[in-house]
């Protein structure tokens, strides 16, 4: 009864590597910190988006991952912006920047909460950043799981496409906390696209190892 949907492309940024559709595009294992690595990816690909520097680290990771995912896979030109969904999850929500915000309010003598930090203390802001960059207006949801839940993600995103609530979806997992980072975003379409991997729990688990 359910139609087949496809993972048409993916991008994974983790452990000092950028993997786009199974090709290691960029690796720098000497980068001393995760934040510096994400920045070096941004610079390497000469992405020109000054707002990048204003984002918290979680959003920077999500942003760069989405940029490389969509670089040669222009779903935004293929579908109406209202029909593209974004469904992302992670484990640590926005705890990295939450901790920063907490620091700025803990000392009464040095009390300067920053609005630019506070706005990032919600995990779905990363969906907002991707939406703004690509003018995507469809369904958007942020879930929290202990670890990437391939089954739920596959089932939920497939149901969005099969019920006509979206024609395409950017889905995945973007987590950043205490220096460890993992960005994994992929596009789902009703046609095979570049990769043509069936969007099933099993295939998703193979891809996200």
């Amino acid at each position, binding site marked *: 009864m359910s139609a087949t949907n496809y993972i048409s492309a993916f991008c994974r940024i983790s452990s000092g590597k950028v993997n786009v559709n199974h090709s290691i595009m960029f690796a720098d294992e000497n980068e001393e910190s995760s934040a510096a690595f994400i920045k070096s990816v941004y610079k390497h690909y000469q992405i020109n988006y000054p707002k990048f520097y*204003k984002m918290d680290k979680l959003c920077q990771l999500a942003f760069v991952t989405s940029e490389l995912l969509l670089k040669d896979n222009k779903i935004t030109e293929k579908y109406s912006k209202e029909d593209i969904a974004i469904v992302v999850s992670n484990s640590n929500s926005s705890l990295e920047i939450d901790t920063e915000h907490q620091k700025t309010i803990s000392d009464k003598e040095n009390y300067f909460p920053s*609005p630019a930090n506070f706005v990032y203390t919600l995990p779905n802001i990363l969906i907002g950043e991707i939406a703004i960059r690509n003018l995507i207006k469809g369904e958007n949801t942020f879930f929290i799981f202990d670890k990437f839940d391939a089954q739920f993600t596959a089932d939920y995103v497939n149901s969005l496409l099969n019920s006509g609530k979206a024609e395409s979806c950017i889905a995945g997992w973007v987590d950043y906390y205490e220096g460890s980072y993992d960005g994994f975003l992929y596009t789902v379409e009703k046609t095979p696209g570049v990769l043509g991997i069936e969007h099933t729990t099993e295939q998703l688990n193979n891809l996200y190892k």
Partner: protein
Amino acid sequence: MEELINKLKGEIIEQLNLEDVKKEDIDNDAPLFGEGLGLDSIDALELIVLLEKNYGIKVANPADGKKIFQSIRTMAQYIQDNKK
């Protein structure tokens, strides 16, 4: 005044994470918002934090920011007039 303007430029670049911007890129009289530096409403709130943190000046009404943050020069002038 010129000294304050120069110092302020450095502080703004730092506070607003304008990583690709250098002090000399900022014109003393050019508008801070809209075109130019491309600052937005969150940046305006951050500049209010900057005034309080670095100069002890409290801006109670964020609408006042519009006038204060017209340009680097108006901001420096405001600091000079209100600094304790």
